[in-house]
């Protein structure tokens, strides 16, 4: 049986969904999971993980919890101390950064942003995208430890009932970096990578102010984040944190709505693995319609408010 140490991120004592998906990915591949957590409320978040597939949880403690290098070195120690076969994290900012450092401590290759994880006998194999999703690669590892990160919104959360044995491990390495402050974003504001619904606007919105329509549609869906094409980010209408695409974020929500976006190859790279894709564009020939499941040919300024109203009506019905 393969045992993986899985990094679980949390906020306010609740594990983040991406981390639960990483646990789910490991369980679905037949692995046992040991969660590793750090930061305030970590012990509280750890208690709940039995129901998501973790048999054990290790909480890292010590003043250097704000240092990625010190934390990573403690996580690698946990992998060794627990006799685990590898390390797994969701491909969030911290998940990806820590996994790379942990892999180096274990002198093992890292497979990033995987969309598939399967076991073949004793070994694990991953599926991941290269070259902006134009290539799907199937890989295995000859490394001493198996390390990978999982793309968000791809893997199912494991739902069960179990208890979890929680222990502590002290962070002992001398920190070389330190997070000194966090400018938190609103509690309700989801990142485009995490949100189950993403509504993105492109140059077809014509002006930054008109993104109010995109925000209104996102608000109608509820669990939604606003995304953007590079053209509008470069124009300064939206922050880079919202850019979807090859030089932005790769997203895979259940529902992706592209409004006034032409569908350039670099944009498709960031959203083509979404569950359902809707395109709203006034040009019937726009390439975005080639990947869309449903399209409306029309003016965003008429279609988007009507769609927002219809979605609100559906949600109100319950």
């Amino acid at each position: 049986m393969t045992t993986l140490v899985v990094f679980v991120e949390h906020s306010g004592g609740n594990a983040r969904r991406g981390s639960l998906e990483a646990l789910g990915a490991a369980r679905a591949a037949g692995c046992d999971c040991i969660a590793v957590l750090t930061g305030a409320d970590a012990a509280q978040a750890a208690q709940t993980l039995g129901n998501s597939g973790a048999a054990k949880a290790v909480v890292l403690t010590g003043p250097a919890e704000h240092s990625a290098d010190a934390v990573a070195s403690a996580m690698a120690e946990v992998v060794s101390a627990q006799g685990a076969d590898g390390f797994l994290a969701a491909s969030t900012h911290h998940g990806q950064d820590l996994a790379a450092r942990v892999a180096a401590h274990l002198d093992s290759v890292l497979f990033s942003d995987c969309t598939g994880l399967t076991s073949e006998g004793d070994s694990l194999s991953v599926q991941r995208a290269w070259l902006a999703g134009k290539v799907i690669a199937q890989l295995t590892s000859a490394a001493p430890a198996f390390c990978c990160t999982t793309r968000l919104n791809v893997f199912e959360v494991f739902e069960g009932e179990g208890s979890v044995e929680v222990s502590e491990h002290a962070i002992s390495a001398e920190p070389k970096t330190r997070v000194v402050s966090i400018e938190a974003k609103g509690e309700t504001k989801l990142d485009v990578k995490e949100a189950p619904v993403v509504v993105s606007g492109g140059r077809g919105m014509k002006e930054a102010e008109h993104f109010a329509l995109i925000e209104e549609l996102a608000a109608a869906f509820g669990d939604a984040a606003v995304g953007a094409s590079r053209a509008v980010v470069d124009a300064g209408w939206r922050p880079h944190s919202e850019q979807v695409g090859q030089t932005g974020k790769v997203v895979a929500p259940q529902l992706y709505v592209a409004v006034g976006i032409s569908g350039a190859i670099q944009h498709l790279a960031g959203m083509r693995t979404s569950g359902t894709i809707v395109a709203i564009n006034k040009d019937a020939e726009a390439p975005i319609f080639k990947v869309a499941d449903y399209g409306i040919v029309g003016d965003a300024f008429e279609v988007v408010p009507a769609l927002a109203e219809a979605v609100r009506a559906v949600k109100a019905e319950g």
Partner: protein
Amino acid sequence: MNIIACIKRVPTTDAEVRFKADASGLETEGLPYMISFYDEIALEQAVLTKEALGGEVTALSLGPASGSKEIRECLAKGADKAVILTDDEWMSSDCRATAKRLAAAIGELDAQLVFMGRVATDRDNAAVGPMCATYLGWACVSGVIEMECGEDKGTAKVETENGIETVEFSLPAVITCNKGLNTPRYAGLKGIMAAKKKPLEEQAPAEADGQAVLSTVSAPPARPEGRIVGTGAEAVPALIDALRNEAQVL
């Protein structure tokens, strides 16, 4: 201060890919190349840092000797010299092997500050920077959107799912650069002329020693054929119906 910018040569973002008949890899012949998008930002930050603190910028690339066209571009944009660790199979060097080979060269160059891209746009590892720093035993900040740096320490901002974090780091350090950190300059005629006289050295890299084993490559599965549900605002009910009853996402 010795400053390094790590530059990867990657296929252009709109390059068409072709698969080998036995799905064992990609046909690389005739692929068009460019400097990876984020590495342009890394190079610019290296040059800006040199302009502020003094020192020398080396553009360092693990890649084919024929990649010198892209590396010359870096010299034209302000790097003082370039080192190519020549490897025609650079794209299949896995992130660990690349990180170790770059770390060995960085050690030789006696650098204090190394700038890399947040992610290279071919393999999308987003791993070489933090891995390389770990092998070197250095500080590392990933995905930097704003920074200040002095002789022995600095401060950087990164955007995470939690918000914007401010991170203090000590030197030596590896910084991976995200969009927004700066606006890369264009190479002027003067730069292009000057680049011709700047040293470009080719070295043999450390052995590849790869661990990733590629089984197959394939094209992504085609998305099921979609449809236009209608035109204008009148099409909204048909879309709602499709989202509720077919796709079941509403």
